[in-house]
């Protein structure tokens, strides 16, 4: 059963077209890798699917509902309550401790602070982060910070996790550790994962991959998806 569908999505930044009729179907529970060269539009596509960017044209459906026509408040609520995010550089809030960073989506969700922090703490031993709960992001290594970001992305049990080059800033071994944890945790809680990556070794963790080329999504049979 599909959870996200994009049909003929176009988006330009000024005169520069980023997406030129991108179509894609994401099945519920799958781990999908979106590959493509730099500047191909893969991150833009991810941001459109997550409701961060609004397409100029085309349609995006999430769970049968039209997403691209929702107003900003509704999309913001969807991102907060239903989606999780992991970015290349973790983007932890530097003023908060690691456990507060992980608890953040729950706090925004309306969970009480004690309960949110307690739930956040449960992720630390699971991700090999025992003892780092009270550290701030500046006191964490790149791999540790990215695992904290991963916990933050998954703590609220999102329906979909959007990961944009989640291992891009890590060495191979740390990157693989993060991908292992990402895939295992997502599978455990039935979260659909869309991971944008230019690294084949990261894409190999996915069950399926598509390539974005010139603003269109191609299956690896060579045909544009949805054409």
């Amino acid at each position, binding site marked *: 059963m599909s959870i996200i569908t994009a049909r003929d999505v176009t988006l330009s930044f000024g005169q520069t077209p980023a997406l030129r009729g991108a179509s894609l179907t994401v099945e519920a529970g799958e781990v999908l890798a979106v590959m493509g060269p730099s500047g191909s539009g893969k991150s833009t596509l991810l941001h459109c699917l997550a409701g961060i960017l609004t397409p100029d044209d085309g349609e995006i459906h999430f769970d049968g509902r039209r997403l691209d026509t929702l107003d900003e408040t509704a999309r913001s609520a969807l991102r907060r309550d239903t989606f999780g995010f992991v970015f290349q550089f973790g983007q932890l809030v530097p003023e908060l401790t690691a456990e507060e960073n992980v608890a953040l989506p729950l706090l925004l969700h309306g969970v009480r602070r004690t309960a949110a922090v307690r739930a956040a703490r449960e992720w630390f031993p699971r991700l090999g982060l025992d003892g780092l709960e009270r550290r701030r992001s500046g006191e964490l290594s790149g791999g540790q910070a990215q695992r904290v970001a991963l916990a933050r992305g998954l703590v609220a049990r999102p329906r979909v996790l959007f990961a944009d080059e989640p291992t891009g800033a890590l060495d191979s071994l740390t990157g693989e550790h993060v991908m292992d944890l990402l895939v295992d945790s997502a599978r455990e809680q039935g979260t659909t994962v869309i991971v944008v990556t230019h690294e084949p070794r990261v894409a190999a963790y996915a069950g399926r*991959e598509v390539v974005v080329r010139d603003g269109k999504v191609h299956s690896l049979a060579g045909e544009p998806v949805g054409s």
Partner: protein
Amino acid sequence: MTVPLTLLGLLEREPSHGYDLKRDYDALFGRGKPLSFGQVYATLGRLARDGKVVVSEVGPGEGPDRKRYVITDAGATEVDTWLTEPVEPEPHLQTTLFAKVTLALMLGRPAEEYLDTQRAAHLRRMRELTEIKRGGALVDALLADHGLFHLEADLRWIELTAARLDALAKEVRR
């Protein structure tokens, strides 16, 4: 070439019966391609003939085998030479994939589609190796990594070639 040397290496660790050698070889190096007993005994026979191993005793052992093989100095030297010498880096200057892409462009065929098909096949294999790695022991992970890095190198070449197809087409169609 590597089977006799690998068996010799195992014998340098400790003298062994053919049966045990096969078991250790299959567990560490066989990976879906176990040695046949015939191959093990034929190899040991050749190694004995060439003075690389000797039969130390004939007596009870695990399995039907009664001969215990011991590496000789000559055998140990051979293992040492093999281990210290670098493996010949293979330049792969005329790969099948290169030939296919060039010919496809010459003949006006859809080279990009061929590259995509190849990319899909490579990624499929990388997925299999990643699964092996995630579920297996460190030895499995190490072997899978070797395959993964080679496949990744091919994929980088595929990416680069895909980006250069137009220029390449002009060159080969002259």
